[in-house]
């Protein structure tokens, strides 16, 4: 391993970490603003112009708050749980190509930390490991609501892993690779080549399970404010709670990158237009996460399980079978 590659990788890691930590903060600003506009409010207005510095105010508040470890909690697990959420969210980013390759001072930069040949598997695996954050945090908290939340987390994540994997199986069969870059090359020919046209069912299934993976509103029952307070986050305060938050928003951003990369052509042919297209698609999917939060109610845990096991999983299996038959003949 030559040192240039090592330096390049470290720089890429640092840049991704910095950008997405900041984006997670700015994501909360967007969420508050968009939710407010949809509910005919103004949202944050007082800190900075149009409340733009609210992110900084929140950051200062989270960083300077006392780090409270309540009595009766299992201290080491309680401390490590938020770190798991945030770390796995960022680790998942390693296999995501955020932009097409570009040249800086004659040096070609690939905006992907590691183009592993099992990219999708790695991303989904890392997001699945992220469920240990809420699970361990909830179980270690010595709080009944946190425990309920931990149980729901386990149920939701494990169920929707099934749907995610099965829905992605059909596109993977078509492309014949697990690397997200190969996915992008497969669809590089333009809008007509997008996998969403040949796999619309898989697209919708994956989109639905993306909501469960990130724990966003129709499936927000792992931390439902109105029934189990803040779920696994009830006993957390200060930056430990903030890590949960950063993990959640980073996950939203990463899954918003993954959906267009797999189904909607990614960055296309790698031109500037394609790169902007990927960012635009990512923004739409991120916006959609906020949009549904303003519009849709939450479902009950039993409805969620019902939807997963009785509806989505059979459809996913049928989709895989049909794809297999079509490819065979």
């Amino acid at each position: 391993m030559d040192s240039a590659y090592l330096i390049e990788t470290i720089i890429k890691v640092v840049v991704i970490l910095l950008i997405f930590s900041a984006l997670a903060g700015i994501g909360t600003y967007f969420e508050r603003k968009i939710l407010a506009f949809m509910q005919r409010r103004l949202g944050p207005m007082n800190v900075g112009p149009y409340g733009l510095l609210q992110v900084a105010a929140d950051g200062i508040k989270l960083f300077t708050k006392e780090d409270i470890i309540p009595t009766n909690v299992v201290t080491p697990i309680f401390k490590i749980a938020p770190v798991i959420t945030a770390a796995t969210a960022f680790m998942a980013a390693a296999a995501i190509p955020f932009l097409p390759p570009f040249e800086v001072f004659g040096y070609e930069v690939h905006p992907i930390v590691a183009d592993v040949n099992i990219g999708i598997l790695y991303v989904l695996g890392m997001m699945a490991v992220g469920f240990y954050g809420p699970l361990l945090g909830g179980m270690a908290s010595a709080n009944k609501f946190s425990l309920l939340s931990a149980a729901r987390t386990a149920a939701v994540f494990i169920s929707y892993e099934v749907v995610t994997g099965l829905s992605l199986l059909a596109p993977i069969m078509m492309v014949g690779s697990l690397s997200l870059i190969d996915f992008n090359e497969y669809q590089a020919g333009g809008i007509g080549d997008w996998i969403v046209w040949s796999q619309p069912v898989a697209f919708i299934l994956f989109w639905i399970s993306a909501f469960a993976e990130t724990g966003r509103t129709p499936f927000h029952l792992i931390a439902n404010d109105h029934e189990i307070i803040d779920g696994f986050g009830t006993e957390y305060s200060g930056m430990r709670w903030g890590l949960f938050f950063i993990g959640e928003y980073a996950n939203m951003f990463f899954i918003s990158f993954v959906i267009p990369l797999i189904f909607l052509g990614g960055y296309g042919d790698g031109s500037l237009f394609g790169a902007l297209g990927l960012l635009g698609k990512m923004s739409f999917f991120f916006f959609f996460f906020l949009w549904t939060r303003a519009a849709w109610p939450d479902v009950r845990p039993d409805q969620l399980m019902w939807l997963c096991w009785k509806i989505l999983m059979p459809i996913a299996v049928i989709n895989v079978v049909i794809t297999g038959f079509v490819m065979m003949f």
Partner: protein
Amino acid sequence: MSLEAFNNRNVAEGDYFLVAIEEYPTTGWDKFKRVVKRTFKGELFVGLWVVLREMIRFDIHTVQYPQEKMPIGPRYRAVHQMKRLWESNTERCIGCGLCEKICISDCIRMDTKIDENSRKEVTEYTINLGRCIFCGYCAEVCPELAITHSGEYENASEQREHFIIYEDMLTPIDKMKAGKQLEFEGFGAITPHEDERVKKTPLAY
């Protein structure tokens, strides 16, 4: 919409109607049909459209309070004011004690004495705004319009005692001399055109 629509409590007439609630499905096939119907009816997208429409319309209802304030009604009952006489700039209060008597939360306290001109003089007058429920009886009962309510509702202070001082409620003398005392047209004030409605006391019989 007129108020009658709300005041009419007779449910049998008017615009009330029963919401059509479908029969709960019992068989598996019926349940399946309901799932399919709900899936493809697109009701979720109605919700999405409603919130997006409101966002595009951008009809914001927020009042940014410290900078913007809602107008309050003329009969709003906020912190009391004690008025002065226009003729002599002295206090209007004649110490009759009616406000103290009528106050249902017992928050008005006054002391009076007979001064050297053998007129009744108010020596002590306090309103405990911590107890006051702002019912407005004191302003209504006052025969001289000496105590009225004002529209001043932002009354935060370090000490509760700040809210009971008579001098704070009294119109400042310089403001009085400048002729800037506002006659409160709200609760307890004389209704407009009262002069035209006054009739002579029929002394003939």
